[in-house]
């Protein structure tokens, strides 16, 4: 009997192929899977959240007790905004289900947003940029339409659903994100609406403005203004179109125009001036 140790060929038990290539393929497939599942989760979360009655939204806002800057001395501005919102509310869908509370923040921020519980916040910076009441009514009607479409709670539901999914995948950093959505005021402005939500809100808003004033003149002047400003800046057009959840402002002007034509809304009349409050 002979005993020897022959050396088998090298590499039989080790697969060939570049590990980096395998890694990149895996990363791409994982990201694809993640994107698709987060998208599906967002939609189902949004769909489910819309089933929550509006009074629970109000209850949530009471629980987390957010200060929208209501303690200031600008009582006349608040009263004016509330009165305007009451006039718009009757022209929006679901008047019996939802209620609106308009807040004013005396900060130089070019923004307005709607959040859960029917709370709408206007910043001084935005009000200053508006040329007439018709433009203000359009912006307000747009934010109110979000509330009446239940967009904030849908966005919150979708955000929470996808954030929870992210936290199961990525651990603590994902759950911090989920926590900010659920717990605090930090998450309120982070509620993102989809482009479709924005377009639907615009459609409802232009209709409401037309009913309120009898015409649509001046309604799109804010978006025209933003569009002009953007053209001055150097960011390429496709970039902002791709990255922004708000539809590009020239698209919105176009959309509002089309809606006006489609519903044969009157396009001539005089604009109402703004009161001299801010």
């Amino acid at each position, binding site marked *: *009997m002979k005993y020897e140790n022959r050396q088998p060929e090298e590499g*039989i038990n080790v697969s060939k192929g570049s590990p980096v290539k395998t890694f990149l393929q895996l990363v791409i497939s994982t990201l694809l899977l993640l994107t698709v599942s987060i998208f599906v989760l967002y939609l189902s979360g949004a769909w489910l959240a819309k089933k929550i009655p509006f009074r629970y939204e109000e209850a949530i806002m009471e629980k987390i007790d957010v200060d929208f800057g209501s303690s200031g001395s600008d009582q006349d501005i608040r009263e004016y905004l509330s009165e305007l919102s009451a006039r718009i509310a009757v022209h929006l869908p679901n008047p019996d289900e939802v209620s609106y509370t308009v807040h004013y923040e005396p900060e130089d921020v070019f923004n307005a947003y709607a959040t859960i519980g029917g709370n709408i916040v206007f910043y001084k910076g935005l009000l200053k940029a508006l040329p007439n009441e018709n433009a203000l009514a359009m912006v307000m009607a747009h934010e109110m339409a979000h509330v009446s479409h239940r967009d904030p709670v849908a966005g919150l539901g979708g955000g929470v659903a996808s954030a929870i999914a992210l936290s199961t995948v990525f651990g603590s950093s994902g759950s911090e994100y989920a926590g900010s959505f659920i717990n605090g005021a930090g998450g309120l402005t982070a509620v993102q609406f989809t482009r479709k939500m924005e377009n639907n809100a615009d459609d409802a808003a232009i209709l409401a403005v037309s009913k309120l004033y009898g015409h649509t003149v001046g309604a799109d002047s804010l978006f025209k203004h933003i569009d002009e400003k953007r053209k001055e800046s150097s960011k390429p057009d496709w970039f902002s179109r791709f990255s922004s959840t708000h539809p590009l402002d020239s698209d919105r002007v176009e959309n509002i125009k089309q809606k006006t034509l489609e519903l044969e809304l009157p396009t001539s009349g005089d604009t109402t001036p703004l009161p001299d409050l801010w």
Partner: protein
Amino acid sequence: MLLSNLEILPGKRVEKHLGLVQGSSVRSKHAGRDFLSGIKNIFGGELTAYTELLHDSREQATQRMTEQAKSIGANAVLNIRFSTSSIAAGAAEIYVYGTAVALVDE
């Protein structure tokens, strides 16, 4: 290639021992299967997904061992042993090894 877990085969004689040959394969099931198996774990029963996985792995490992034996000029592998181990969460390894020999008829 003759594979056996016997060491002495009736009617055959080992002419030469050529040393140890081995084959291994590490595999995992996709997350969906892991999840379903986790649910099945509550009720008990055979986890067919894993049975299948280990079967395929065992075949590949055996095939790799055979390849090693072939590359050193053996015509049989005797005293074959299988072992299964868990390498990382969700990944199982099948390992098979034996003695490569040159067999002749008696």
